């Protein structure tokens, strides 16, 4: 089973210390440890490889600039994840996204306007599940991903988005409702989600 999660990000504390002293080689090693989970998170939430590139680079720049804040090396994965999630959310708030999608409306309508419809192809678009995810509104997809995959609580998601806990709950319900409509009974489709394993 391929893991994409932040739980696998366990850099050597000595590397963190070296990076804190400005060693760029050490920073590169750190980057290698979190690049994949950050990129996966951003791709899944934003569904645009170009924006995910931006999120990963912005996250890396912030990690380099603020690594000095880290006192306990074991907090590093959660810290990086929080930075990455915030970068994703700020992408969702950007005019680029806004022109096609009303963030607050959150309705599962078309997530693209004609101008941005021709974006780069979605990653591993072959599977039913990823295709269904792409149909969700970015906001709904974000709540689903943060809750079901990244393990955030509704209260935390509400906080991150400047919304209430019940907002997060209803978005999650909406996400599952929409996936149910699109996928039908997903049982038995398990094998289909395991293609193009990159690890």
């Amino acid at each position, binding site marked *: 089973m391929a893991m994409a999660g932040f739980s696998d990000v366990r850099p050597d504390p000595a590397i963190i210390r070296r990076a804190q002293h400005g060693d760029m080689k050490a920073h590169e090693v750190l980057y290698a440890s979190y690049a994949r989970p950050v990129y996966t998170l951003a791709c899944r939430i934003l569904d645009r490889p170009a924006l995910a590139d931006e999120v990963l680079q912005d996250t890396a720049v912030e990690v380099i600039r603020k690594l000095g804040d880290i006192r306990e090396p074991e907090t590093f994965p959660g810290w990086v994840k929080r930075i990455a999630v915030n970068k994703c959310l*700020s992408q969702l708030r950007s005019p680029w996204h806004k022109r096609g999608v009303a963030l607050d409306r959150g309705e599962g309508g078309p997530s693209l306007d004609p101008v941005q419809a021709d974006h780069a192809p979605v990653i591993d678009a072959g599977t039913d599940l990823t295709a269904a995810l792409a149909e969700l509104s970015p906001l709904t997809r974000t709540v689903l991903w943060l809750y079901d*995959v990244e393990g955030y609580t509704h209260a935390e998601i509400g906080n991150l988005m400047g919304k209430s806990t019940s907002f997060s709950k209803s978005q999650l319900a909406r996400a599952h409702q929409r996936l149910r409509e699109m996928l039908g009974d997903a049982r038995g489709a398990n094998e289909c989600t395991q293609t193009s394993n990159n690890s």
Partner: protein
Amino acid sequence: MHADIEQLLSLRDGAAVSEATRRHVAACRQCADELDRLTLLSRQLRDLPPIEPRQTLWEGVATRVMEPPRAVFPWGQAVAIAASCVLAITLVMRSQAPEPGAVDAAAGDQFAEIVPSAPAVAPGSDYVAQSRQLEATLRAMPAAPRVTRASTAGTIADLEDRIAMIDLKLSHPGLSPQGRQSLWQQRVRLMRTLVRVRYAQVRDTL
């Protein structure tokens, strides 16, 4: 009555549900199946394969942290085909004043990152809105080509510098409303020029 999806999710995740709901789901085949399905779906999401970023992204990061912050517009990140750009630019060029609905609070949030203490909307003008729309157009343009004429690259860098300078001035707390207005006006003018130069640059590479 069957449990709704929110109740089933609460059951799945060990959150509080009424005793009646709990008893119903335990006894109802249909609801129990739905609950299983939700559990499975969550696992399928977690099992989606990781996605590998391009190798070259690190180089961009290393370059950015070595250089002093300057660029207002991160080129090389937005990907869109040229046709959609032409459309976007045509729209911007045609509509000198965007419809009021084009500006909203969330877009303001993002903009506030670029212009720290600029007001969300400048009173009595739509320069802020225009500026924002131009920003969106620029973001929607394809990445700058690898090979660019030195003169074009110089022009772009110069325009970005001048815009950055205006942003710096806009962040000054003691700015008068008139001063602010005039800065926004200049910003829009520079942004329009930048869009034209960028457009020419993209067109030349097609």
